[in-house]
């Protein structure tokens, strides 16, 4: 099959294509189990396979994909035809940043392949969690686990041949209750990186047992809590919401295709302009952010991107100063040309596709915030006069250029004079991105730093759902509007 792909690539190159690549998924498997109030509502397994072909012709992309690989030549021709038509409307001919031809492989770390574990064992685990969460105050309980396993073979017209084998595990448990006003509240636990590998061993019974007890306890506290006040005060974001803050207002804002206007027809652009790199004070000096695809054992570390570029660890924000973006081969060339100076030194290795039938686009890797020197969570609380600790993503909404946002959280704890006072419910906060990050006044130490996973980041048209990670510490921001 690989040889056939190479032959087709060569054929299109001889026909005038500037660049051709193919991603062959011999087999992608997934397994999804959901238990709701003791009922195994969903026990689904799936498989898919196919080929996606990308052709660059006269500065324009064509793409075609099919699950039927018996007509490879036709598939390649279709991609080429799509590129020919696209070439009729080109304003900035696509150029690809230089790269080395690579022959390599990557395997994500796991000890126990979850697809070798009996279904009955998985169901037993869910039943156990469901039973643990079946407590007073809990009216709905849900537990689930999703496993993915895919083999991707990438070949291109520049001599690269890369094989990737990736396993992902995304478990979650959650409880829901109804307060005296009839409002439903939720607490959940979704483990991020909890070890050196992410196979079935992720399903650590003690960890889940402890967290099941915690979320039930916290839910019951929320159910009798008072509403979050409308106020302006410090917010202390735990990793369970800081990851999403980072995701929406640093990650998405710094995708270079978005900055260059390639997402304007859909999820929007970015307030960041090319002239901002090296100049914009994105946040306070306590803010250092990076796109780190070399961080071991997360969905944001994948060895090589779908341009065939090795994983990298790139600074995005250095002590508050904007210095980098999430990039792939095409966009860095366009950005440098449009800026009339070299902002980016080659691809950042972040071009990924969610499946064989989608085209690679700039996606987050692990968009992390470096931990700081302001101590533990307790230390930060002690140094907070008037604030609220927030945790658990409930809703998120951002402006069309990621310039402002509104988040709701599952739980809040009011802080007064350096002490945690009481729980509040229906907590929300909002802000303007640059102003917000410049009000970052405390960054927790390593003890507060956690890697959270995202399994459902949507972007692009046709839309793609991607998996990635965020390593984030506890962060405190001052003068934030809450309770709206």
């Amino acid at each position, binding site marked *: 099959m690989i040889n056939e792909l190479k032959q087709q690539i060569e054929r299109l190159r001889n026909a005038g294509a500037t660049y051709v690549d193919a991603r062959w998924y011999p087999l992608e498997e997934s397994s999804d189990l959901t238990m709701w109030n*003791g*009922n*195994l*509502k969903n*026990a*689904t*397994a*799936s*498989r*898919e396979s196919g080929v996606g072909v990308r052709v660059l012709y006269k500065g*324009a*992309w*064509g*793409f*075609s*994909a*099919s*699950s*039927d690989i*018996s007509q490879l030549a036709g598939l390649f021709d279709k991609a080429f035809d799509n*590129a020919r*038509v*696209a070439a*009729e*409307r*080109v*304003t*900035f001919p696509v150029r690809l940043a230089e790269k080395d031809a690579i022959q390599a492989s990557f395997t994500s770390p796991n000890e126990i392949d979850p697809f070798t574990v009996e279904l009955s064992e998985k*169901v037993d685990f869910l*039943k156990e969690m469901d039973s643990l969460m079946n407590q007073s105050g809990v009216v*709905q309980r849900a537990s689930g686990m999703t496993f993915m396993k895919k083999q991707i073979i990438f070949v291109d017209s520049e001599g690269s041949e890369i094989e990737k084998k990736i396993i992902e595990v995304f478990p979650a448990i959650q409880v*829901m209750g*109804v307060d005296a006003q*009839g*409002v*439903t509240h939720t607490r959940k636990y979704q483990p991020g990186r909890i070890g050196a590998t992410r196979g079935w061993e992720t399903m650590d019974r003690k960890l889940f047992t402890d967290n099941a007890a915690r979320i039930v306890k916290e839910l019951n506290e929320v159910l009798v809590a008072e509403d979050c006040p409308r106020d302006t005060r410090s917010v202390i974001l735990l990793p369970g919401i800081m990851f999403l803050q980072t995701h929406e207002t640093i990650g998405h804002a710094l995708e270079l295709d978005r900055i260059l*206007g*390639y997402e*304007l*027809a859909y999820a*929007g*652009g970015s*307030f960041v302009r090319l002239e901002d790199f090296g100049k914009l004070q994105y946040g306070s000096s306590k803010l250092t952010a990076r796109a780190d695809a070399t961080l071991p054992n997360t969905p944001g570390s994948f060895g090589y991107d779908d341009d065939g570029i090795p994983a990298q660890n790139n600074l995005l924000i250095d002590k508050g100063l904007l210095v980098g973006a999430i990039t792939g081969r095409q966009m860095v060339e366009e950005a440098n040309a449009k800026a009339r100076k070299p902002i980016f030194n080659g691809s950042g290795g972040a071009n990924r596709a969610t499946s064989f*039938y989608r*085209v690679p686009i700039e996606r987050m890797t692990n968009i992390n915030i470096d931990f700081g020197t302001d101590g533990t969570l307790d230390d930060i609380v002690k140094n907070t006069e008037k604030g609220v600790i927030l945790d658990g993503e409930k*809703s998120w*909404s*951002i*402006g*069309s250029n990621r*310039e*402002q946002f*509104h988040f709701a959280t599952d739980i809040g704890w009011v802080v007064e004079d350096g002490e945690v006072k009481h729980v509040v419910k229906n907590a*929300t906060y*909002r802000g303007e991105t640059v102003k917000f990050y410049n009000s970052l006044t405390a960054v927790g130490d390593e003890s507060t730093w956690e890697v959270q996973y995202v399994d459902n980041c*949507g972007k692009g*048209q*046709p*839309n793609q759902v991607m998996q990635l990670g965020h390593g984030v510490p506890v962060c405190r921001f001052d003068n934030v509007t809450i309770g*709206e």
Partner: protein
Amino acid sequence: MKEKILNILGELRQYAINKGISAAFFYHEEDSYLMRFANSAISLNTNEHLVRLEITTYDGRKRAEYQMITDLNQVEQMKAGIDTAAEMMKHTQPLSYDPTIPLYTETYADESSYDQALAQLSNEEKLAYFNQAAEGLETGEITLSGIFSSGTNITAQINTRSEHTQYFKSSDAQVNLVLSHGAQKWEILAEQSAQQKADLDPAAVHSELAFLSHVYTTTVPQQIPVGTYDIVLGSAAIGDLLDLMNWIGFSGGMMKRGFSFTTQEQVGKPVFSEKFTLVDDPTRRETFPYKRDVSGIERKPFPLFTRGVFDGYTWVQDDADEYGAQPTGHTVMHKSLVLHCGDQPVDSLEALVSMPREKDLLYIPYLHYMNIVNPSRGLITGSSRFGALLLKKDGSVAVPFNVRLTQSLLDIFGEKLQWLSSTEKIANTSMSYGARNPKAIVLPAFIRVNGLEISHSNSAF
């Protein structure tokens, strides 16, 4: 192709029966084309042909599912999928209720929503559409983005309870064009939905864009004060709000799970304004309707809210099984929502702008990145985007920077609802996540809601 699909489904059914397996099969085939524009160029031209098969096996109260992306030549692989689902089922646990396997009492096929001319639209025709719709509107600073998404969608079902099949085939197109200013960062949008080729009207899109472009290029944008406004919502914003309501407003399963702003006790009682009448109406071809659901129930117009009174919940088969309700024919990939028009004679944005007004009106055509803040209260939040206007009472028009609206659906469609336009529009609410699923909502072109609070106002785009 239809015969081949149904024959294969019949073969799979027989294979399951021969092995003593109770099974239901859901077939989905898409031929999808998407031409994407950015920076006034075609940034991507793509197509995908995908065949999906979902196999659900049953054994009393046990159930398991196996899904595959495959092709019609892989029948043995599909049969292996039946074996896998059956094997999985042995290791699942019984549900607390009896899941229903549909009983199809007759073979049914509906291809009335399919227009070959639309489905087979060429690349050249799509490019010509875009060129016409944007003609003369692009400049060095103002660039074109957008999509032309079109395709064919086929779904088919069979199960081991009967030899009858269901088969649905439709064509669709979703077009949107965005003009954006590189330096000022404003964006304006015009959209079109098509079920047949004759629905495509690039001149109408051009007219909308030209009007908004003129306003935006001749008016200095401004930050408006936060506070309370009378707001006119455009069709895209209304469509997205109704899409959220579909999720947290009248789904029986969501209500039972605590994620609804309505309660069982509200059935038969006023929930919204008397001006609000919402129906699930599969007779409207513009909604890419399913005239039978997966359970085989014939779908007829189903009132949801009549003059503000809550008519009742929709129940998908599995939720109905679990909660002891009657399924209502809503086990479908999407409903066919129709919000009845009102009597306000305003048929275009130009007409809206020209209307005499007693006070300032904020026009919001589109709500970006909406999310549900509190489902129990119907509370949503989102930001204006794509061509908002401040229509001043003195007749002048200003361009506001984007604003945030955090409000309950109960307010938006409740007593604050002032009027609905008498002109109808189609809001295509299709997403390109996962399997192709064209959907659209028929609704008034505009609604006016008085006294909504703007909680944040941008100082720039």
